[in-house]
């Protein structure tokens, strides 16, 4: 209602006419986007994240070196432990090779290629685990908030999951499900499903709590009552009225969830649980290189930076989304 130009209507005098919005109808998502654009950090974060995703998705098509390729014979000795080319800037004696811009690891595998295929896994894990955790969290939060009777039980369940230790859980789950899963999804697919589900089911609690709180508050809003009085069935009440209105905390949880999942997967790899050894992920690349950190700092730095940058950009994205989705802030 920013415009104040009185609208001349034939029927009513100017003073009493309602101001009619002059702008074309716009969905509130456009508003959100407008506000989002204001947040420079979020914009940069969003773009960075997109670039990273593109790099790991499209990168291998451009940089078609096989991440698993091992040089043969004598070449092996020549090619292993190549430094990134930029090292040549300050160290003439350094072993560098334009064919391996980021160098190779101690077995001669191309670091750039490994970074890209590792990133694909890490980000895929982040995204899917986040989806799972959001799904679970929303479901449990909505049920707990909407159906009073379930509230106590579900909140205690949340306590339980908060208390469960992740590592033994991973061990148990891989004991129980690994063979079945790898029969269904293949070896790597099986581990992927396993890791993703575990991260997912151990990280939904936060979302659930927030969603529950919001649903409790929403339940008191009049439009829910109105929806009931126009005969909306509970199913649609939840889908049409509750869910869209808890989207903003969910979206924020989602961005944080990606970050948490990427870090958790990396931490698991770091502690030696997770994917098979020849299946690079950023966490594993980092973990495997910590030993040689002072010899080949780039092997720690690049995956470390990749993880941090991804998480950082996603966090900024979440920050901006929170501002953009909060009608109080957006209104300003």
């Amino acid at each position, binding site marked *: *209602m*920013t415009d*104040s130009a*009185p609208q001349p209507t034939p*029927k*009513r*005098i*100017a*003073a*009493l006419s*309602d*101001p*009619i*919005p002059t702008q074309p*109808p*716009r*969905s*509130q998502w456009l508003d959100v986007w*407008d*506000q989002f654009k*204001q947040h420079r950090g979020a914009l940069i974060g969003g773009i960075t994240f997109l670039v990273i995703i593109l790099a790991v998705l499209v990168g291998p098509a451009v940089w078609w070196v096989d991440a698993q390729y091992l040089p043969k014979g004598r070449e092996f000795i020549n090619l292993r432990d190549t430094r990134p080319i930029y090292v040549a800037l300050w160290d003439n004696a350094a072993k560098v090779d334009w064919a391996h811009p980021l160098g190779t690891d101690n077995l001669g595998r191309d670091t750039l290629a490994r970074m890209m295929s590792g990133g694909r896994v890490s980000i895929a894990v982040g995204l899917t685990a986040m989806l799972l955790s959001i799904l679970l969290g929303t479901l449990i939060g909505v049920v707990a908030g909407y159906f009073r009777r379930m509230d106590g039980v579900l909140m205690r369940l949340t306590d339980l999951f908060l208390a469960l230790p992740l590592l033994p859980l991973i061990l148990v789950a891989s004991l129980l499900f690994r063979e079945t899963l790898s029969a269904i999804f293949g070896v790597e697919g099986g581990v992927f499903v396993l890791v993703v589900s575990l991260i997912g089911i151990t990280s939904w609690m936060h979302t659930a709590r927030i969603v529950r709180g919001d649903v409790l508050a929403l339940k008191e*809003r*009049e*439009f829910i*009552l*109105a*929806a*009931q*009085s*126009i*005969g*909306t*069935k509970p199913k*649609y009440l939840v889908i*049409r*009225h509750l869910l*869209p*209105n808890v*989207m903003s905390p969910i979206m924020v949880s989602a961005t944080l969830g990606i970050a948490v999942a990427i870090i958790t997967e990396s931490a698991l790899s770091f502690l030696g649980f997770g994917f098979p050894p020849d299946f690079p992920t950023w966490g594993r690349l980092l973990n495997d290189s910590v030993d040689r950190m002072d010899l080949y700092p780039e092997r720690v730095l690049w995956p470390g930076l990749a993880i941090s940058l991804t998480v950082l950009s996603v966090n900024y994205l979440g920050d901006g989304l929170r501002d953009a989705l909060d*009608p109080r802030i957006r209104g*300003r």
Partner: protein
Amino acid sequence: MLDQPIVDIRELRVEFQTRGGTVAGVENVSFTVKPGETVCIVGESGSGKSVSSLSLMRLIEFGGGEIAKGQLLFNREKGGEIDLAKATQDQMRKVRGNEIGMIFQEPMTALNPVFTVGRQLTEGLRVHRGMTAAAAEKQALELLREVRIPEPERRLKQYPHELSGGMRQRVVIAMAMACRPRLLIADEPTTALDVTIQAEILALMDRLKRETGTAVMFITHDMAVVAQMADRVVVMFRGNKVEEGPVEQIFNNPQHDYTKALLAAVPKLGEMRGKAAPEPMRLLGAENQRIAPIPGTDQRLLTVSNLTTRFPVRGGFFRRTVANVHAVEDVSFTINKGQTLSLVGESGCGKSSAGRSILRLVEPMGGKIDLDGVDVMALDTNQLREARRDMQMIFQDPFASLNPQMQLMDQVAEPLRNYDIASGSEISDRVANLFDRVELPRSFLRRYPHELSGGQRQRVAIARALALEPKLIVSDEAVSALDVSVQAQVLNLMMELQAEMGLSYLFISHDMAVVERVSHYVGVMYLGRIVEIGPRAGVFENPQHPYTKALMKAVPIADPARRKSEKDLNFKPIPSPIHPVGYEPAPSVYREIEPGHLVLTTDSGY
């Protein structure tokens, strides 16, 4: 000296930087306030009333505003005139609270929830008067007495949430008056309050003003309050002052179109005297208005008997029900087809609960509800859903009762979809027709609620309720949150629909003037019971129950000639509706004064 104004606002312009560019909250406003005078500033929502007052306090900066132009000359007690628009924040701190006091609209949120009343009261005294804690406390006590708060000693140690709305507003007033400011700014101090409390607060302010000689700048959109309080009136419209003058002149001889329209839109208590049936208001500028009484029929549509709704209060270790909130207690009434029954009463007396109980949105404990032959209480979930096609509800807050995330079209179409009444293009046709019906442009179909003004939203809500072509609409304070002018339009709309479609309304409101305008029958509620019910004329012209009488007395009338005086008011504090489990209240017994006009004889607590 006396003629010299305390404040002289000259060509004030206040701007806000928003995403959509610079917005002027106030475009060009000038007026003065003289010592000992009450200047009322009126205008519709968003006209810049608050912005003007906040600029005067230089608080506007904290809200993102900026005084772009103009002078705010303030006559200081010592040291002559100062232009507040150019004063430093340091200087302002000495003025604020000390020389200018301010009262805000929302008593619920204006106090800091985590500090005691005493602490918040003494703060200003200690800063501005340099008092010791003990002295300030004594002074605070004195202030509380002045604003007539019962048991002031105890209040000092209480937290804001432990006080009722009226008491809180008194605390806010006491705080504003603490340092004996020369100017008191009151920004809609009574809008959020009940009539009875409003009357008391208005009387209190009037007395304080008289006793201390403080000048008052009183902001409101309620013309009745203006008539009650003002010496002079400033009318604002979309950021500009459009008219200014002594109160009688404004009411009797308004010059500007807007002022005229505004006054025409204000329902005045007593206006309907002698008219048999309600009729739409004559609004300025609306041509070819059909002003015809709406008689309705004598056919019964809804019969409610002995309706009782209680909310359990759980407590103790096992969270058993330890008490009940007796929200609705043995209430009976009937509504005829095409007629309106209004329920009036103070906040918390159970009006909404009664309305919701009829739709079984809250589950009543007992009683019978018969809607056109359907025993609503006996229905199961599915049947109830079917039955709700015949009764719909409109809610108070147009901002809260629409889903902010759905297009208007979908919101209005939702009931149609829910009951499979229409499908495909038929839906959009019907929705478009409904929009026509509530006089909304069809271009709004694809818009979202936040793009609309309050009145427009309320029309959407009405359209949604109409979609199912119900027989009964429960309107729970449907117009209370709207500006007077908008309120009048919505009221007229509702009445026109009633005339055309033969709708029945259960009209819930706390505004006596509005109720008088729209009702065929009126029920007065107090503490869960109807204490008096009957034809409008009977209840308004011949009130019998002491509570009804007190209520009538408290209502300010939009006519400066009919001001109320403080001694007319005598309200008792409302007793708690919470009773321990096992408490069985006596049944409601009524005395019939004239045909259909019943007065409660059971002790209602008043």
